[in-house]
Structure formats: C-alpha cells, structure tokens
C-alpha cells in the first residue's frame, strides 16, 4: 500500500532535511511543474479528483478555477496554507507540518505556480511550536537553494513564502476569518460573495487550502492523475490521514486509501476498544460532524459515503464515545467549545450556542426539564445552514442533532432521574 504523504515521516526521527528530501525525489515535482503550463497542472489536479482535506471536501481544482488567470489578472495573487488546525479531536496536519515540512513547502510552490500566485503564507496555529521551528528552517533552506524568491530555478516564476503564527481562536480556521486575522483584524468571517478567489487578502485574488490538500499536489504532479486516483477505494483520489482518539487500545494516525471503512480503522489500526469499554458511537471527523453508531461501522470513510450515512468525513480524525462516558456530558463539552469559540458576529450563533450550553449544563446538574429536548431540537434547526455567516454554528448543530437522535434515552434519564447517571454522587 502506497503512503505518499507519510512514507518519509518517522515520529522517532527529525524531519528530512533538504538534501535528504531531494534524495528521495523531493522538489522533482517542482522541476516537472515548471516544464508544464499552469493550466495543465490545474487540469491534472482536476483529473486526480483531489478534494479539500480541511473538512468541507470541496473539489480543489474547482476552488482553484475561480482564480483570475492570464495577463489581465490582478496582482499580487495570494496563496494561503491553512495550518490553523484546531478542530477538537484533530491532529493530522500537525504530523505533516512536523514530520516533513519540505513536502508542504514544495506543495505550496507547485500550487502557487499553477495559480500564478506571487506571495504565499502559512497561517499556523500558535500552539504548534515544534512545527513553527521546523517550517521556518525548511522555508530558509528552500530560499537558499533557490526554490523560493525571484526567478525560481530559472523558470521566470517568483514566489515569496512567509510563516504567519496566530494568537488563538478556532474561528481563524474559517477561511474568510483567517484572512481578517492575517490582515491584523478581529477574525470575524466575511460575507460571501465576493469569494476570496476574486477578492481576498487586501482585496486581491486569494486561495486558501488546507495543509494535507497542498501536500498531495506534488505527488499528483510527479506521478499523474491516474496513479492518484488508483490510491483510493472511491472516485475521490488519493490517500487520507485517518485518526482515532478516545478509549481505543491504540489511538493514533494512519495514512490509508480514501474510503477505508470505519471498522477497519477502528479495529485493525486503533486496536479496538480498551478492555472493559464498549463502543457506543463516534464523531467521524472532528467535533463538528454528526454522530454515527454501531450500525454505521461498515460505512466507508469518504466524503460521499459519510454524507449518505448522515454525517461528514470532516477531518477524518474520529473521536470514539464509549459506554462509560456520558453522551450528554460529551455534548456539553462540545457545545461549550462552540459557544466559547463563536466570534460573536451573528446573533443565532453567539446567543443560540450559549443557550444550548446552558440547557445541557442544567441537565447534567439534574435540573433538566422535559421541554428541553424539544428546545434543543429547535436550536439545531435555527443554527442550521443559511442562518449564519459561516459554518461554525451549523457545525455545532451536527453532533447535537445526531446526539439527540441516537442517545435520546440518555437525555431522558438525565431529566427523569434529575441527575447525570454517569456521576457517582
């Protein structure tokens, strides 16, 4: 089984330095890209069926297609790598940033060439200190080797790449909020349209792509679209970084074919549940995805299959709920997170999420009322898509709506017994 993203990564070792990276074929995709027209690279990425790995799963080539190209295009154009990984339960981009920073640098340069971008930023969450040091070093090495800067490898193409470390807040991962943060503003999302591809950073065309997405691009260019599609069990190309956390025997992260079934990840790679714990459910791709339960274990972890099962692939890093953990308590934890991280820009989000948190808090403390279930359900609709500027509140509604469906008995026990049955006293 091929593992293009991680075959160079060993958690025991330092990441490959420039010479090592080059020796294993690194920056070969960049040299190949410079022999191709930008439009041909875009066509290749389209044919590869690469879908964005940040969570939404939008086609990368389609996203790119809205960037103005040609002589009349406004400049500078910007490429931003979204490395603001902060989705609870998610730790996949960290591996790529820490484990092989040159792979990401090459992915950024190749993608910037395909888009004819002039300046690129890596927007990195502040907590990833090790990644920051390693990225700085890789960017410095790439400049010294002539892979960045003016007239790269004599191609006539120039690119500046800077690392931008954040100062916190989950909302910075939302792409238009990220642009505001990068410009030195409060990270409130922007209204769309105009989309960033047309009017992004400082009003110029801007593409925002996730770390894992960009890391795939050099491999597509080096090995071709057909090869990339062959890595996957489904129509979407490539491998996927899958993870598992919670009370499994071996929590971790694995690069597997896109479309690997949940059961295989959970049982073969994560080693199944710890002794004394039973599986009750999971969030397949971070805090903002719908719960799935035992009936869904044979569903493939790809964008379309997850959606058909009533959830989303999200970041592909699953959080496991066991039988000794309270589902209402887990939802309180999740909704507390979303309420706290709401940027405060639109009312349904900041007011609705705090309300939800309060209802769940009351329920955990034994003060739930039978009308609360209906009220929570109505909140999931009021916070659904279309009622807010960005996807934070709809994301918060996902685990709640599915939690109410799958764990209804647990909610009712909290209300009727006037306590959390999982707590001792």
């Amino acid at each position, binding site marked *: 089984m091929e593992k293009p993203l991680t075959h160079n990564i060993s958690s025991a070792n330092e990441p490959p330095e420039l010479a090592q990276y080059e020796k294993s074929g690194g920056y070969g995709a960049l040299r190949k890209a410079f022999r191709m027209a930008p439009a041909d690279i875009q066509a290749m990425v389209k044919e590869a069926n690469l879908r964005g790995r940040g969570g939404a799963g939008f086609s990368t080539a389609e996203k790119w297609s809205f960037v103005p190209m040609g002589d009349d295009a406004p400049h500078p154009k910007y490429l931003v790598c979204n490395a603001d990984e902060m989705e609870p339960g998610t730790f996949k981009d960290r591996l790529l940033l820490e484990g092989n920073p040159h792979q990401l640098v090459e992915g950024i340069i190749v993608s910037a060439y395909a888009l004819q971008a002039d300046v690129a930023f890596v927007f990195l969450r502040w*907590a990833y*200190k090790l990644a920051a040091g390693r990225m700085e070093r890789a960017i410095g090495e790439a400049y010294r080797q002539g892979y960045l800067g003016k007239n790269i490898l004599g191609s006539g193409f120039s690119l500046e790449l800077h690392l931008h470390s954040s100062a916190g*807040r989950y909302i910075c991962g939302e792409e238009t909020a990220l642009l505001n943060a990068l410009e030195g503003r409060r990270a409130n999302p922007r209204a769309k349209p105009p989309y960033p591809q047309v009017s992004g950073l*400082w009003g110029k065309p801007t593409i925002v792509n996730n770390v894992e997405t960009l890391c795939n691009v050099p491999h597509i260019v080096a090995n071709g679209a057909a090869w990339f599609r062959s890595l996957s069990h489904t129509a979407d190309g490539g491998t996927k970084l899958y993870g598992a956390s919670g009370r499994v025997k071996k929590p971790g992260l694995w690069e597997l074919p896109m479309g690997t079934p949940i059961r295989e990840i959970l049982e073969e790679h994560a080693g199944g549940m710890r002794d004394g714990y039973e599986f009750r459910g999971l969030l397949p791709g971070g805090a903002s995805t719908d719960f799935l339960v035992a009936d869904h274990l044979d569903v493939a972890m790809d964008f379309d299959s997850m959606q058909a099962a009533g959830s989303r692939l999200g970041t592909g890093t699953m959080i496991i709920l066991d039988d000794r953990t309270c589902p209402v308590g887990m939802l309180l934890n999740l909704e507390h997170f979303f309420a706290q991280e709401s940027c405060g820009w639109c009312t349904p989000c900041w007011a609705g999420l705090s309300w939800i948190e309060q209802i769940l808090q009351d329920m955990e403390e034994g003060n739930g009322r039978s009308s609360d279930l209906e009220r929570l359900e109505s909140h999931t609709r009021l916070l659904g898509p279309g009622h807010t500027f960005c996807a934070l509140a709809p994301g918060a509604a996902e685990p709640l709506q599915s939690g109410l469906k799958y764990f209804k008995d647990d909610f009712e026990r909290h209300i009727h017994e006037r306590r959390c049955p999982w707590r001792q006293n």
Partner: protein
Amino acid sequence: MLSEQERNEIEAHLLHYPDSRAVCIEALKIVQRHRGWVSDEGIADVAEALQMSAAELEGVATFYNMIFRKPVGKHVILLCDSVSCWIMGYERLREHLTGRLGVSLGQTSADGLFTLLPNVCLGACDHAPAMMVDDAHYQDLDPARIDEILAEYERKEGESTDGKTTDP
C-alpha cells in the same frame, strides 16, 4: 515606549506585508514575550508604532485568547479541555491542578509561579489528556505526572532564586 529590541523584532515582520497593520497581532505577541503580558502602555506603544488608534488595537488584542491583557504568572499552564481530553480524564486533572495550586481556572498561584488556563484542543488527541506549560507540550497525563512536571518548574525556580540571593 518600545524597547529597541521590540522595535527591531516588529520591523523584521513588516517586510512580509503590504501594510503595517497586518503585523499588529505579532507585535502584541512580541511585547508580551518581553514584558510577560500586554498592559495599556503596551497597547499604546504598539498602536503608535503601527499608526493605529489604541482603541482599534484594543479591539484586536481582546479578540485573541493568547494575548494576555492581564498579568500572568511566570509560567502559563494551558490545560486542554476539548472533547478527546475530556473523555480521557480532563476533569480529574483540573481538580488536581486547582487543588495543588490553590487556584481556580483563570487564576495565578499565590507565589506567582503558575497561571492556570483552560485551552481548546492542543492537537495531541492520540496522547490525551494533554497540556502545555509555556511553549512545552506534555501528554499522556495523570495527576502523578503533573506533580512531576510542576515539581521540575518549582525546582528550577528555587535554583534561580538561590542564585540571586548573593546580596549582603
């Protein structure tokens, strides 16, 4: 007024952006690194250097949780309270830390050594529960491990205090 070192560090970032405002968050982090936190004076200094109004900069500073607008202890403990760490024992660690330090979340220990803050997911979910102390990550935590980690910071503090008491 910004120190020369603060000014130099801020100016190095200015080269990367088309306008000076874009470095304001980084500039606040630089001031915080040198002064421990961002006081009203710190806001005024950065605002003046970047030609922003203090009120505008204050609006930015208070948005971001890693800009401290109140004094913090010598070390800041960031205890992950997100879902994977919650499942794996966050509440037990919180009780242990608040008890050991004699503080609630958001407070600083009486000796001024530690400020205890809850924090969102630190990206170490496969080694939950996790926390950071300043820039260092710690994972696979339990109360005993936390005691070891804090004792190490306390031991270093003791050594540096001993070194300073040479005045007659």
